[in-house]
Every structure is written in C-alpha cells, then in structure tokens.
C-alpha cells in the first residue's frame, strides 16, 4: 500500500477510493494519456494524475 506516514497529504490521498487498492491493481492501472501529453514525471492511477514521486513507498510497485 501507499506509505501512509510520509505526509498528511499522502494519507488523505491514499484514503481516496480510487487509490485504496492492492498494490498489484495499482501497478496495472498506470496509464498514459494519449494525444495530449502529460509529460515526464506523471502517472495516472485510476484517473488520478499523480507525480511519480507520490508513489514512492509503494512496495513492489
């Protein structure tokens, strides 16, 4: 799961429904947005546009 202790923000982020998933499901949901580029440094997890650094602390991701 997400590292819930990193910051309060990440605690709230991790509690969001779309992210309250097993790690395996998270890693499968990392998608790109075609056509209009998000650029480097972003991942999309169940629609949430996250910075890659947000995912630090996800074990096995």
């Amino acid at each position, binding site marked *: 799961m997400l590292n819930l202790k990193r910051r309060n*923000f990440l605690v709230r*982020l991790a509690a*969001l429904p*779309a*992210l*309250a998933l097993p790690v395996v499901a998270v890693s499968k949901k990392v998608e790109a947005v075609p*056509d209009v580029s998000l650029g480097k440094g972003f991942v999309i997890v*169940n*629609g949430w546009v996250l910075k890659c650094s947000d995912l630090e602390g996800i074990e096995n991701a």
Partner: protein
Amino acid sequence: MSIKDLDQIDTDPFVDQHYDVCICGAGPAGITLARKLAKSHSVLLLEAGGMSFTRESQDFYKATTSGVKYFPLDHYRMRHFGGTSAMWGGVCRLLDKEDFEKKPYMKYSGWPISKADLDPYIKEAAEILDVNIEPDSIRYPIKHTGPWPPNFSGLEETEFRLSHYSSLGGAPTQFGPKYADEVRATESIDCFINAPVVDVRLSERLGDTEAFIVANNSGGRFTARGRVFIIACGAIENSRILLNANTQQKGGIGNDNDLVGRFFCEHPHQHLGEFVFEDEAKKAAGEDKSFNEEINSAVKGRHLMPTKKEKLNRKILGYSMGLYPAAVKQSTDDNQSFKARIRSLVCATGFIRDSAETLKGGTVACYDNVDGYIAIQAEQEPNPESRITLIDEKDPLGNQRLNLNWAFTDLDRKTIKSAAVTAAQQFANSGTGRVRLERWLMDDKIDVPDADSKTASNVVGGHHMCTTRMSESTETGVVDANQKVFGNSNLYMAGSSVFSTAGVSNPTFTIIQMTLRLADHLSKRL
C-alpha cells in the same frame, strides 16, 4: 399603447399602419430594441406566444436532433413575452478582446467588429440586466503567491457576474415582469402577443422587405408593413424563420450561399474531474471567500482562463475552468439521502467504484472524500456542419419544424482535453493538490459527453449562437457588421444568432450590448 392579443381582435389591426420599425420576438433583444427605438419612432413588437408559459405555445419549439446528442429543444427556450429570460441563470461576462480577432488555427475566426465597438454599451447593458460589471475587471493576471488561490502558468483569473433583479427577490432579470408595464405604457409601441411571424414578404426585386406576415391561432393572416424589420427570436428560431420564408426566394431569405442555420455553436459544459488539496492549499482554500461564497454577485469558485499567448501557443480555443468546492455537490446529494447513501457505498472503495462505472458505462461521481471539482465552459469552433435545417414535419401554423445537427471539430475536442490535462499538471506542479480526470478524457480521441452520456457533465449551457453569423463576406456569413441580412436592404437579425464566434462568455450580456448598438445604427438610418 397597450399589449393586445391577436387572438382576441375582430378586425385587422395593421390595415392602415406603416411602422418605422417592425420587431419579431419580444425577448431580451426585441424588448430592448423596442424600448430604445420607441423614443423617436413608431414600433410594432410581435410576440409569438402569450404573456406567460403555455404548453401549446411551447410545443411550437419541438424539434428533432442529430449528431452530438442535444437535449429537447423546447427545454432551453421560452416562447412567451420576455422570452428565454424567464429561465436564464443570470450569469454575465463580457467577451474578450481576442474573441473578435482572427486566429490562424481556428476556421472562420474573427468578427467584422471589435470589442471597442461594444464597450460603449457596457453601462447601459448592465443597468438593463441588473448586473455589476466594470469594463476592466473581466480578467486579470494572477497575482497570488503560494499554493492557493491557484497560480497556474499560462492562465489568468476571471469572474462571472450574476444578474440580481431586486423586484424578483434578487433572481436574474426577467424581461417580462420587468418591462411589460413600460411596453404597455409607451404610446409609440404597438405590441401584440399570440402574433407569430409565419412569412416575410419581399419586394418584387427581392432586395427589400415589405412586410411580416403575422398569424393568429384562429387561422387569421395579417400583413404588418414597415420601414425596417428585425427578427429577434433566438439563434434557433431566427434561422428557422429565414429558412421558412421561402415563398419568394428558394431556400429562404439571406440563404443564397446556403449559410442560414450553419455554424451553430454552444458552450460545452464538461465536468473534468475532482481534486484534493495538499495540506497548505487546503487550509488557504478554507479561508478563501471567493472560492466558498458568492461575493459581490460574482459566481462562487475560482475561474481561470488561458491567456491569449497560451491559446496561440497551445493552438486551442478559449475556455473558462471553474474550480468549485466539493460542498456544492455534497449539498445537492443531501437532498436525495437514499441516493447519497448508495453513492457512498459505491464510492467506499476504488474497486467497487470501478466496477460500478463499468456496469453503468459512465462516471460515478464521488465527492465525499475530495475537496473540489473542476468544470469547464468551452468555446466551439464555428463549423458549417453544425447546423439547423428544416424537416418535413410542420407546426400547427404550417411552417416546417427544424432539426439541429450539433457537431464538434477536432479543435473542440483538443481544447477540452488540453484544459483537463493542463489542470492536472498544474495542480501537481504547483503543490496545490492532485486531480482525478474523468474516464472519457483518457481516450485517444475523446468522445465528449453528450445528452445521452452518463457523466457528471451538464453538457450544454443552453447558449445557442452563430446561426446567422456576422461576417465581412457573403461567403462566410448571413449578416453584415450592422446585423443587416446580406442582399436585403432593410431586414436585420438580433440576438446571439449574429455572433461570429462563440467566445467563452455567457451570451446574454453581449446580446444586449449588440442590440443597443443596433438600435443606434437604426436610429441614424431612420
């Protein structure tokens, strides 16, 4: 000289009359024009419906739709004295300077007039609409520092103002209740209700308008003559009237180049997603009155628009991106407690929500655990395939009903997607928070939600524009810079049908500005 009912008269009221001005349509544009011109001219004001809503009258607005699915067309217009002002939301904003300018990547961009041509009418339009708008407050560079209010690169802040008519308890101005008594009391205005214009009579050489043919519901037909004629029935009906006036000109009046009814534009209203604040931004947003409350009649929330430079760089149309507190949606849900509880169950975990969305084939909007949501009002590119045409079915007075084929261009889609993705990037990069984008935004070529879609989007603004667009050339428009129909010496169009492009602003304020300018033009001509 009073408001008369054409269904209740025994003799032809127009037999010995020759008005300076004949106006078809008693909505915001028609009433404004009548009030202005009546100061020095004789005015005939014709309203197709009665003094208030009836189902029978409203049924004349029934129509078919094709293309991008639109809502029923009799839901967004009102056919009675005062017109659609009886149901508008009261949101006002000026068009921006660059809305009038040509853009190399946008087809049919540019107006034959500029913002400076309309600016002299801001004060008077604001009084008519009971709204507080200052010329220099329509948009301004972001001056904030810190994570909230948003300080996003390439975007500026703007405000939308609300019409507050004190006699209606602060509700948006309705032209029926506000101006009926004045119209009744004005000697130089003859106003008739239940008086639809069913045809437009031209001179033999077809270059001049001689009369409106007016019907009543008892089968009567009357000929109303005048010096100048104005059709002011809203962008959909304006084009239907011109297309149906085909007894002397095949294809209708002003339609030599098959342009009447084309270029229909709306303001797509799309829910782009939800957001959560980072901690510091959450604290600041909680103390931000503009975000949480209606201040000085400005719509609550923070509203951002791309700068002119940003639009040119990204080659996109205009849009206004509203950031709103989640409490707005939560309070709506509170009114449907059972539905809200089901929603909470579905939203409890991502897995259930994901499954529910798959089963539904659309979005399940969840606001319980987020801080706000993002919605945009976007401009559309003028598109000749987005159009109104006549269909075989006729209304009870024998005029053909219409079909609206609403269409998007690739530039429309790119603009909406670009707005969403940029917002998500900027939230993250500025330390403001994170955004969840709607599922449909993930597709390669996005399928913008329409009236059939199961999303949180409102889809439309009910803003109908550009169907008799103003242009420098007969090749690309129906009316000239003075709103006069090309090829006709004395027939004018009023209302948002003459917009050359849609811009981003709600259209009513611009409609009134343009109508006041038209009144000035006609006063000089008469």
